[in-house]
C-alpha cells in the first residue's frame, strides 16, 4: 500500500489541509507540536476502520470545537493494482465515497463503498493489523511492534502458518482445550472428566468391596446356620448312642468288680502259705552265715596282734640306727673343719710374705721414677749440645785468629782511657784485638775511636750466634755445659736399668693377681683362722700335717654315709610294718561289724517266723490254687483294661455331648439372629453386590474410555505444542537476521540480537553480556524498536514490492537518541526508503539528516 495524499476537513483544529507524500522514499513532515501531525495519522485510521455512520467517541473527539461541522477525511492510495480516492464524513451529513481511478474507474458510496474498500485491502494483502503495529509514535517510543499476529508477516517469514494464528493455531488451541478437559495446565495432573472418572472408579470400587464384605457376611451367616443345624442333629444322634453304650459298660463293670473281690480273697490265702515257707528258709540261711562270720573274725584278730609285735621291734631298731648315724656325721664334720683350719694357716703365711715383697718392689719403682723425672737430658739433646759446643769453639777460634790488633801504650802520665777505663800503671801497653769498636782517649788530649772492619764484625757475630745457640740448648737440657750434659746422660742410663729390674720383680710377685684382692683374701683367711681358734676346744697341733688331716676327714665322711644308709633302711621297714598292722586291724573290725548285723537279722527273722500263722496242709493249698485260676480266667474274659478305657471314654463322652448340644443350640440361635438381619428383606446383599459390581464395571469402562481419550488429548497437545515451539524458533530466524544486520550498524559489528517466539526483540548481547530488552536504556530500546519495525516492513516489502507492504510512519520519535545513533538510524532509514514508503512526522527535523521530501506544515 502506498499513501499518496491525505486531506483533512473540519478535523479537530484543522479547517482544511492537504498533505502529499512521496510514493517512494522518505517524506519528512515538519511542524511544531499541536499542529496536527498525529491527528493526520489518526484520521487515516478512522477513514479505514470506521463507517461514516459511526458515532464513536473517537469520532466525536475529531469534531472541531467551535464549528458545527462533521469531520471529513480523504485519502488517495495505491493498493495492489488499484489506485483510489477514499473519502468519509462523519456526524454531520455523513458520507462515504470510494472512487477507483485505476485499473478501471469505478465509484461507490455508503456501506458498499466501505465494504469494497476493505475488500480491496484484503485483495492487496494489506495487513491492517501490521500497518498499525509498525507505526512508531511518541507514546510507543520504546514499545516494540506486536507483530506476531500478522498473517502477512507470517507468510513472508517463509511459513504458511503463523504460530500465533491461522488454522494450525486454532488446532493447537482446540487441542489445548481438549487437554484442559482432562489435565491441569501446569502439573499435567488429572482434573475435570478424568479426575471425575478416576474418583468415580475409586468410589465404585470401595462401594463394591463394602457390598462384597456384606455379602460375605451374609453367606457366612447362612453357612453357619446350616452347619450349626447339621452339627446339632449329628450331636443328638451321638449323644443317644453314647448314653446306651455307657449303660451297657456300667453293667459289665459291676460284674468285673465282683470277680475281682473273689480273686483278692483267694490271693490273700495263698500268699499267707507262701510267706511261711519263705521265712523258715531265710532263718536257716542266716544262721549259716553268722557261723562262718564268727570264725573269720577270730582269725583276723590274731593276725592283727602279730602285726603289732613285728612293728614294735622294727621301731626300736630304727631308733638305734638313727642315733649312730648322727654321731658319725658329727665326727665327719669335725675332721673337715680341722683340715680347713690347717690349710688356712699355711695359705695365710705364704700370702703374707708375697704381699710384703710386692710393697717393697713398688716403693723402689716409685723412687727410680722420681729420679728419672728430674733428668731433662735425652740422647737427642746430648747430641745437639755436643754439636753446638763444637760450633761455638770453631767460631771463637776463627775470631781470635783473624782479628787485627791495636796496641795502646801510655806514654806519659796522662791518663789514657781505653773504653772509658783508665789504663793502669802496670798496664802501659795493651794489645786489643779489633773485634769490636772501642775508644782510646787521653783526656783533653786525644780520643781515638777504633772500629773494626766488616770482616771482624762478621766473624764475631758468627761466634756470638754459636755461643747463644750452645747456651740455649744447654738451658733446655737443664745443664750448665756440655760436660754436665754428658754426666746427666750417664745417670739417666743407670736409673732406667734399675726401673726395668723393679718392674720385672713386681710382675713376678703379683703373678697376674690384683694386690687389693690378695689383701682381701688374706684378711678373710685371718678372720676364719681367728674364728676357728675362738670356738675350737683345742686347735690341732701344728705339727699334724695336712695330708694326715685330709685322710682322717675322708674316713669320717664314709663312716657317716654308712650309718645314714642303715638308719634309712630301718625306717622303711618300720613303715611297712605299720601298714600291715593297720590293715589287719581294719579287717578284724569289719568282720566284727558284719557278724553283729547278721546276728540281728537272724533274731528278727526268727521272730517273724514265730509270728506267722502255722502251715495249711497240701490238699487245701491245691483247692485254693484251682479256685484262683478259674477266677483269673473269668476276669480276663471281661477284658478289664479295655472295659475301663471304654467306660472312662463313655462317661466323658456323654456330658461332652450334652455340653455340645447346649453350645450348638446357642450357636444356631446366634446364626439365626445374624441371618435375620439379611433375610428380613430389608437388605439383599447379593443384589446389592450385583448392583455395586455392575456400577464398578461401568465405572471401569467409563474410566478406561475417558482415560484413553485423555491420553490421546495429552499426547496430541504435547506433540502439537512441541512442534509449534520448534516452528516458532525456525520462524523467527529471518527477522532476527534482519534486525541483527541493522543493529550492527547502530551498535557495532559485535552486537547479537535475540528474537523471541512472539517475534519481539528479547535480548541484546554485546561482548558476551546479554541484557533483556526491558532492561536496556530508553535510547537503546527506542532504537531497537524502530529497527524491529523497519525489519518487519523490510521483510514484507522484500517479498513483493507493490503488494502487502505498508507505509512505515514514524511520529516524533527518537528523542532519546544521540547524534551518532541518529545518524546511523538515518542512514538505515535512507536505505530502507529505497524500498519502502517512509513518512516521518517531526517537530525537530534536525534529528533526521536524510535526503527527503520535506513538507512544512
Amino acid at each position, binding site marked *: 500500500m502506498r499513501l499518496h495524499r491525505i486531506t483533512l476537513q473540519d478535523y479537530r483544529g484543522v479547517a482544511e489541509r492537504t498533505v502529499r507524500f512521496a510514493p517512494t522514499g522518505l517524506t519528512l513532515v515538519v511542524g511544531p507540536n499541536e499542529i496536527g501531525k498525529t491527528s493526520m495519522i489518526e484520521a487515516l485510521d478512522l477513514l479505514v476502520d470506521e463507517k461514516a455512520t459511526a458515532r464513536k467517541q473517537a469520532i466525536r473527539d475529531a469534531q472541531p470545537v467551535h464549528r458545527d461541522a462533521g469531520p471529513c477525511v480523504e485519502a488517495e492510495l495505491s493498493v495492489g493494482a488499484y489506485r483510489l480516492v477514499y473519502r468519509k464524513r462523519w456526524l454531520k451529513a455523513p458520507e462515504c465515497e470510494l472512487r477507483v481511478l485505476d485499473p478501471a474507474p469505478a465509484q461507490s458510496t455508503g456501506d458498499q463503498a466501505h465494504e469494497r474498500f476493505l475488500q480491496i485491502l484484503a485483495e492487496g494483502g494489506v495487513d491492517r493489523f501490521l500497518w498499525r503495529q509498525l507505526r512508531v509514535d511518541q507514546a510507543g517510543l520504546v514499545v516494540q511492534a506486536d507483530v506476531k499476529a500478522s498473517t502477512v508477516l507470517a507468510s513472508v517469514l517463509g511459513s504458511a*502458518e503463523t504460530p500465533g494464528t491461522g*488454522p494450525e493455531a486454532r488446532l493447537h488451541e*482446540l487441542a489445548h482445550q481438549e487437554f484442559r478437559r482432562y489435565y491441569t495446565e501446569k502439573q499435567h495432573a488429572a482434573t475435570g472428566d478424568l479426575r471425575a472418572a478416576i474418583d468415580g472408579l475409586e468410589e465404585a470400587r470401595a462401594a463394591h468391596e463394602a457390598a462384597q464384605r456384606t455379602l460375605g457376611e451374609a*453367606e457366612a451367616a447362612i453357612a453357619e446356620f446350616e452347619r450349626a443345624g447339621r452339627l446339632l442333629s449329628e450331636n443328638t444322634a451321638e449323644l443317644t448312642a453314647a448314653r446306651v453304650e455307657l449303660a451297657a459298660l456300667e453293667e459289665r463293670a459291676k460284674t468285673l468288680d465282683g470277680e475281682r473281690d473273689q480273686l483278692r480273697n483267694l490271693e490273700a490265702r495263698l500268699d499267707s502259705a507262701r510267706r511261711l515257707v519263705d521265712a523258715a528258709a531265710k532263718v536257716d540261711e542266716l544262721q549259716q552265715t553268722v557261723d562262718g562270720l564268727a570264725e573269720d573274725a577270730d582269725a583276723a584278730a590274731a593276725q592283727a596282734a602279730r602285726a603289732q609285735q613285728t612293728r614294735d621291734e622294727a621301731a626300736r631298731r630304727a631308733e638305734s640306727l638313727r642315733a649312730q648315724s648322727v654321731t658319725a656325721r658329727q665326727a665327719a664334720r669335725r675332721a673337715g673343719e680341722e683340715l680347713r683350719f690347717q690349710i688356712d694357716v699355711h695359705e695365710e703365711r705364704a700370702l703374707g710374705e708375697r704381699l710384703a715383697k710386692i710393697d717393697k718392689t713398688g716403693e723402689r719403682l716409685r723412687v727410680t721414677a722420681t729420679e728419672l723425672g728430674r733428668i731433662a737430658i735425652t740422647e737427642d739433646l746430648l747430641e745437639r749440645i755436643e754439636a753446638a759446643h763444637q760450633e761455638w769453639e770453631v767460631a771463637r777460634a776463627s775470631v781470635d785468629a783473624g782479628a787485627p790488633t791495636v796496641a795502646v801504650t801510655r806514654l806519659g802520665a796522662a791518663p789514657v782511657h781505653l773504653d772509658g777505663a783508665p789504663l793502669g800503671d802496670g798496664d802501659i801497653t795493651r794489645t786489643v784485638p779489633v773485634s769490636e769498636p772501642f775508644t782510646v782517649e787521653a783526656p783533653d788530649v786525644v780520643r781515638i775511636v777504633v772500629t773494626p772492619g766488616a770482616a771482624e764484625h762478621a766473624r764475631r757475630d758468627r761466634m756470638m750466634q754459636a755461643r747463644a745457640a750452645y747456651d740455649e740448648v744447654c738451658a733446655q737440657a737443664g745443664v750448665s755445659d756440655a760436660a754436665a750434659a754428658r754426666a746427666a746422660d750417664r745417670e739417666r742410663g743407670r736409673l732406667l736399668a734399675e726401673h726395668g729390674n723393679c718392674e720385672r720383680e713386681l710382675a713376678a710377685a703379683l703373678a697376674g693377681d690384683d694386690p687389693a684382692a690378695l689383701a682381701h683374701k688374706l684378711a678373710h683367711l685371718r678372720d676364719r683362722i681367728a674364728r676357728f681358734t675362738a670356738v675350737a676346744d683345742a686347735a690341732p697341733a701344728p705339727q699334724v700335717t695336712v695330708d694326715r688331716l685330709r685322710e682322717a676327714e675322708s674316713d669320717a665322711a664314709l663312716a657317716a654315709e654308712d650309718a645314714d644308709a642303715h638308719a634309712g633302711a630301718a625306717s622303711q621297714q618300720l613303715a611297712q610294718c605299720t601298714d600291715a598292722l593297720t590293715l589287719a586291724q581294719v579287717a578284724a573290725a569289719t568282720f566284727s561289724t558284719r557278724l553283729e548285723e547278721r546276728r540281728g537279722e537272724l533274731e528278727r527273722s526268727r521272730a517273724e517266723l514265730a509270728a506267722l500263722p502255722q502251715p495249711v496242709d497240701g490238699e487245701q493249698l491245691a483247692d485254693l490254687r484251682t479256685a484262683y485260676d478259674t477266677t483269673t480266667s473269668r476276669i480276663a474274659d471281661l477284658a478289664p483294661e479295655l472295659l475301663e478305657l471304654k467306660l472312662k471314654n463313655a462317661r466323658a463322652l456323654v456330658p461332652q455331648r450334652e455340653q455340645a448340644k447346649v453350645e450348638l443350640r446357642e450357636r444356631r440361635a446366634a446364626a439365626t439372629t445374624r441371618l435375620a438381619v*439379611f433375610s428380613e*428383606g430389608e437388605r439383599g446383599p447379593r443384589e446389592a453386590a*450385583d448392583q455395586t459390581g455392575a456400577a464398578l464395571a461401568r465405572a471401569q469402562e467409563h474410566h478406561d474410555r475417558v482415560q484413553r481419550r485423555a491420553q490421546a488429548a495429552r499426547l*496430541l497437545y504435547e506433540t502439537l505444542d512441541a512442534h509449534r515451539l520448534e516452528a516458532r524458533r525456525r520462524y523467527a530466524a529471518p527477522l532476527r537476521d534482519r534486525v541483527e544486520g541493522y543493529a550492527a550498524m547502530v551498535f557495532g559489528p559485535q552486537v547479537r540480537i535475540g528474537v523471541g517466539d512472539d517475534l519481539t526483540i528479547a535480548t541484546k548481547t554485546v561482548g558476551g553480556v546479554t541484557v533483556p530488552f526491558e532492561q536496556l536504556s530508553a535510547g537503546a530500546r527506542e532504537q531497537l524498536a524502530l529497527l524491529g519495525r523497519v525489519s518487519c516492513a523490510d521483510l514484507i516489502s522484500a517479498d513483493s514490492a507493490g503488494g502487502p507492504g505498508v507505509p512505515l510512519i514514524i511520529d516524533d520519535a527518537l528523542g532519546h537518541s544521540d547524534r551518532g545513533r541518529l545518524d546511523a538510524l538515518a542512514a538505515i532509514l535512507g536505505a530502507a526508503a529505497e524500498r519502502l514508503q517512509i513518512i516521518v512526522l517531526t517537530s525537530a527535523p534536525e534529528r533526521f539528516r536524510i535526503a527527503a521530501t520535506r513538507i512544512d506544515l
Partner: protein
Amino acid sequence: MARFLHTADWQLGMVRAFLPPEAQARYDEARIDAIRALGRLAEAEGCAFIVVCGDVFEHAQIGAKSAARSMRALRALPVPVYLLPGNHDPLNAGSVYRSRWFTTERPEHVTLLDAPGLVRISDEVELLAAPWYGKQPPVPQLDAMAAQVEPAAPGTVRIGVGHGATEDIAGDMSGTALRPERFTAALNRRALDYVALGDHHSLRDVGSLGKVWYPGTPEPTRFTETAPGHVLVVDLEPDIPPKVTPHRVGRWTLAERTWELHESADVKALLGWLDAFPDESRTVAKPILSGSLSLSDHARLTDGLDVRRDLFAAIPDSSRSSLAIRAEDADLDGLDLTGFAAEAAADLRERGGPAALDALELLLRLAARAEDAGSVRGSGQSSGPRSGVATA
C-alpha cells in the same frame, strides 16, 4: 379340563452390568410389568392358576425395593399362584421365602411349593413338586420322583413342577441333569401328564414331545438367549395330549452381533443394524468388532456409536472386540495440515501404537471442528461436527 399358565425364571432383582442406572431401573420395571402382563393374559385366557417353575427371584436374598414391588405384582395376580424355589432362590436358611416380609405379606392365593412330592391343588389337579434347597439339585430330582409315584387317579391330571437343565443342554452339570427319558416313561404311564420346567431361559419343547416344556424367561436376561420373552398357556385333560400355546409378554431386546470392519461401508452397515431396532430404549445391542478401520472411519464409528448410546438402553463394548485402527495417508491428506500441525501429525504417525493413533484420531476430530468453526465464520452456515448422523 385344566387350563393354566406356565412360566419361570422371572429373576426378579437381576442386575445387568451393561445397563446404566436409568436403564436398569426401566429394566427392573419391565420385569415387574411382565408379571402384570402374564396376569392379564391368565385372566384373559381363563387360566385356573399359574405355575412359576423356579428362579422367581434372582437371589436367595432380595433387596427391599425389589421385594416390595415383587410382592405387589404377586398380589395383583388374578388367579392362584404356585412358586417353586429354584437354584437362584433355593429354600435355604437365608431364603427369601423364609424372610419375614414374605411369610407375613404373602397373599393368600400365593403358595410356596416348599416340600417335595405331590400337592393336590384342586379336585382334578395334582402337582408333583421338586423344590431346591441349595445350590445343588434336590435329591431326588423331579425325574427320579416321577419314576416312583403311582399313576394319577382317573379324572385327575398331574403336573410335574421342576427346575434344572435337561441332560441334552446341561453341559457340565450333566451328572445331575434331568433325564428326558425318565419323563417319557412317567408320561407314558400317566405318573405325569405334563412337565413344567424352569431354568432354561428360552422357550423350548424338550424332545419335541409337546409335553415337557421350558417357557423361558418372560424378559430377556442374556445375549445368548434364542427365544426369551414368553409364557405358556397349557390346556390339560386326562389322556389327551396337552395343548401348549406360547404367548409373548417380553418387550426388551438383547442382541449381539459380530462385525468385521474394514471400510466406511462396514461402519455404515453396523450403524444401519443399530438403526433398524424398533424400540431402542428397550434394546441392548452389543456389536462385537474385529478387523481394522482407518482413523476417519474409526472416528465415524465412534461418533456414530456415541450418538446412539443416548438412544439405546445400552450399547456395551464387547470384551471380545478386537478392532484395530490404522492411519492412512487419506486420513491426514484430507485435512490439508500445514506447518507444525503437519509435522506433529507426521510425528504421531511415525510413532505408531494405539496411543499415537488415538491422538491422531483426536487430531482428525479437532481439525474437522476447526474447519467447521472456520466455515461458520466464512459462510455463516452451521454444520456441526455430528451433522449427518441420523437422530431419532
